[in-house]
């Protein structure tokens, strides 16, 4: 026998609400108990399982007046309008029609109705209204009665007869089917109701510090909680997903013995282009590809006189034109991370070492779903005596393997400051095609010699956002920077 203790507050409320009623609909139960529909539904399931309530579904039909019927009530049924017309002096159908009081298609209904109600009689070929015509017809009465809508079950037999007649008329009434669920207590429920009322324990929801310290908790009955109920959604703080990828890649570099370097975004053209064997009239140096800072036409180059002389000499030898120091002095937003790398190598002059950076670069581009004006570039360099192209390929394979990429191929390409130069392509299973990954090469002697870098430098790099778009399955690169919380809050931290 279930005791009062075992009841959830929701169950208790429902049982109480039904205790003095035959049955209640779900809506009425909610209204009576102050619970939500969801809670009522849950409570009903539990009580049904315990065999304390029964659930019955009823179907009801309701009659409502339809537009046609409303119009008829307002203007009068055809037979009423016929009789009114006759009262005004018309004597036959032709005249009534001519007067416009009824329409052609209504003639039959009008005459039939008028005859049925004994409203007209035919005398010497003329239609004359009778004194019965002053009475309301059953149809008229019915239409007015059902305007607020009425359940079919509540209709009298007479009403039903009239309904049959009315249903023949076009669009006068509408019959709607409504379903209702009614809940009622079972016999066993009625038997335990009395025990429910004799609740001796006081029920508590909160376990308070006071109850704990006073020991009163021992005498308190604590209510059950609706452990299934949903609770407010909250969001933890987190790294930006792009930063997560950056961290991962940093770890891969570090695991392969690379140390992180960093440097300024604003570089002189000398370091961004000249020292990297890019002639001063190269198209990439134009306004439409590179960001120059307004009102900053010249800034002193942060290089030694010796370095500047040697680099300019290379330019003069290779390209038979003068080398303009003022061009080298123009500050730009770096178009790649290589100026930072090459300055670092020139500074530390190590015989062997491995360095990397992942940082922002800038191109004067119009933003689109696949292009940004500023993006992250990954760059790695390895300097060693006798570093070779095969070692560069080997480094790439190791790096990619740690990123989980194994289907790789290499093709020749061109960069102004590396020779030989290669690009790597990775096969993407989801898109089912080869995608360009990184560019790479060995720094040209024209780059390393003027800076006193003695050993061979292997270098490689590429854009980060493309990798991010593949990982996060984005179609528009700008989404990475919109910082929409729906995305930021939703990207799973564990990418399997």
């Amino acid at each position, binding site marked *: 026998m279930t005791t009062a203790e075992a009841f959830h507050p929701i169950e208790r409320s429902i049982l109480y609400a039904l205790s003095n009623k035959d049955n209640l609909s779900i809506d009425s139960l909610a209204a009576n108990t102050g619970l939500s529909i969801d809670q009522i539904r849950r409570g009903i399931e539990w009580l049904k399982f315990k065999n304390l309530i029964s659930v019955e579904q009823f179907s009801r039909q309701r009659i409502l007046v339809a537009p046609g019927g409303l119009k008829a009530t307002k203007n009068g049924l055809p037979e009423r309008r016929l009789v009114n017309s006759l009262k005004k002096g018309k004597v036959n159908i032709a005249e009534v029609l001519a007067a416009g009081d009824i329409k052609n298609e209504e003639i039959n209904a009008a005459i039939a109705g008028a005859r049925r109600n004994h409203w007209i009689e035919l005398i010497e070929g003329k239609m004359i209204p009778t004194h019965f015509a002053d009475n309301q017809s059953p149809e008229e009465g019915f239409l007015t009665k059902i305007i607020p809508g009425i359940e079919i079950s509540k209709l009298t037999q007479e009403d039903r007869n009239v309904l049959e007649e009315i249903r023949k008329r076009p669009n006068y009434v509408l019959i709607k089917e409504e379903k209702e669920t009614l809940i009622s207590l079972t016999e066993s429920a009625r038997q335990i109701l009395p025990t429910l009322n004799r609740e001796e324990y006081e029920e508590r929801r909160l376990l308070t510090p006071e109850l704990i310290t006073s020991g009163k908790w021992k005498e308190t009955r604590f209510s059950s909680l609706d452990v299934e109920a949903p609770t407010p959604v909250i969001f933890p703080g987190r790294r930006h997903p792009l930063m997560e990828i950056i961290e991962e890649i940093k770890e891969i570099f570090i695991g392969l*013995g690379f*140390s992180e370097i960093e440097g300024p975004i604003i570089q002189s053209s000398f370091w961004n282009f000249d020292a990297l064997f890019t002639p001063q009239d190269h198209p990439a140096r134009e306004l439409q590809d590179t960001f120059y800072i307004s009102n900053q036409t010249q800034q002193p180059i942060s290089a030694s006189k010796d370095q500047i002389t040697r680099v300019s000499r290379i330019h003069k030898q290779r390209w038979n034109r003068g080398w303009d120091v003022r061009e080298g002095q123009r500050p730009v937003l770096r178009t790649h991370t290589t100026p930072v790398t090459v300055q670092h190598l020139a500074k530390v002059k190590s015989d062997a070492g491995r360095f990397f950076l992942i940082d922002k670069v800038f191109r004067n581009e119009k933003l689109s779903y696949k292009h940004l004006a500023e993006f992250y570039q990954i760059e790695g360099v390895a300097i060693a005596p006798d570093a070779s192209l095969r070692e560069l390929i080997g480094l790439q394979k190791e790096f990619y393997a740690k990123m989980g990429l194994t289907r790789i191929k290499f093709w020749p390409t061109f960069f102004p400051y590396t020779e030989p130069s290669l690009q790597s392509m990775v096969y993407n299973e989801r898109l089912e095609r080869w995608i*360009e990954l990184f560019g790479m090469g060995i720094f040209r002697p024209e780059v390393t010699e003027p800076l006193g870098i003695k050993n061979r430098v292997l270098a490689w790099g590429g854009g980060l956002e493309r990798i991010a778009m593949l990982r996060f399955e984005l179609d528009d690169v700008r989404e990475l920077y919109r910082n929409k919380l729906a995305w930021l809050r939703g990207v799973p931290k564990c990418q399997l």
Partner: protein
Amino acid sequence: MVEGRAKMPVVTVKIKRLKKLISDIRVDTALEMLPFIGLDIEGVDKETIRVEYNPNRPDLSSDIGIARALRGLLEIETGLPKFKLAGKSGIAIRVQGSVCKVRPYIVAFAANDGTLQDETLKQLISMQEDLHNGIGRKRRKASIGIHNLDVITSPITYKTVTGDYSFRPLNESSDFSIDCILSDLEIGKQYGHILADFDRYPLLIDNAGKVLSFPPVINGQATRVTDNCSNLFVEVTAIDEDTAEDLLAILAITLYDAGFDINSVNIESGKKTSKTPRMTQKVISADVSYLNNILGLSLGAKQMEHCLEKSRLDASIRNRKNIACTIPRYRIDINHPIDIAEELAIGYGIYNLEPSFPASYSVGEKNSLSVHFNAIRESLIGLGMIESLNFLLTSKEVQYDTFDAPPPKHPLFVETSKSIEHELLRDSLIPVLLKSLSYNIHEQYPQKLFEIGKTFLKSNRMIEERWSVGAVIANTESGYTEIKSAMQALLRSCFGREAITTPSTNHMFMKGRSAQVMFEGKSVGIIGEITPLALEKFKLRMPVAAFEINLLPTIKDK
């Protein structure tokens, strides 16, 4: 090492013609091998293959050049491509002194008894445009004219004329003066700026008064080429002699391969007469061990010769240690032994290079700034904040107009940005964080965002790059208390010291609700409640409190 964004030039290769150029090559073989000569396949359909090439290889600007390179790699034809001058054309160009200041150099050749039909003319036109844009530096450095030789009478004069000189330009139905061409015709407006500094303009005219061209703008209608022409006159004018010669050589070998006889032209300038095209090949020597070392191979002499020949070089080993390579005239990109190394790698086949894995003697580590930033990032995440990333380039509207504030004395604008939203280097993180909030007005509150990034300030004529951390909290009852607690929690947990806030004013914050953040006696940042003026402009409906701290002073002190 990110690919240049400037559009790479494209060549459309008709498959039928490729099969003729390379004895019946199979399409799938071609598609497989094209990337190994450095071409990116853009698109393939039933009749054509479209490829992108790097402009450092102007010889690949036509299907003829591509076929020449492929024949080598496929070992159908190796070593130096054949080229021989057929003879003298008997044509002379007399150069007048006045061109010296404007466009001093001209070189030319005659191409006889060939056919332009079957795609050759199309390839020539496409090639000419690519060469103009690439090496020609949009025609400024050099430009090419191709003319119908049959209507030309020698000697040709290369001189300057005044702006009122008239002739019929290509595809026009009447004569135009040069001034009109520069002001009215599209092509004049596009390239006229090259001649903006001058009042006399270059003109190439033959002995009968036919105008061949007005370099670098437009050719004359009189010498127009159609695909019926079998005799061509090709000239290059330039401001750089080497560039002119290089372009001419590339055109010469292309037309030679297309079946024309190439005949030389005399250039008479003052007392000097020179014969063009000059097709002398350079010879570059490299150490065998050097080449092997760079690639990580140990090729024998014969093998090396063979690989280089596949790249269309001639190679012969001298005294076993040294290899002398003859470079085709059209390879203007090969100048140094390192360039030989690349040709060797391509001839060997990049696909044949086995990776090698040297041991690393270095231990990797993070940069100390990174480590500090990570600590800050983790503290803020621990305070329930979500990291946002915004661009460093922003707009005057976002940074200043939204606060009705004037821009600083020296705002850092960039020249001619293609996006107006990216015209200015940001001097503060708070405005861009507010912009991020404005994308999220329908998302659940509270919203707490932070960013660690660079901000820029111009001081004493130098531009300072600073690392800053900014945070915003938007919530129905957001306020100073909450943001101050967060800021102090951050500095305390990262650096173990308390930060103090002293009253101040700032255009971003409400009056009386703005403070400076003091840390170790130095002002390191700002904190306050955002002015409703800005909230309205950003279309935010929630109050926002914010702080921004410059990190380097705080890190240095620790």
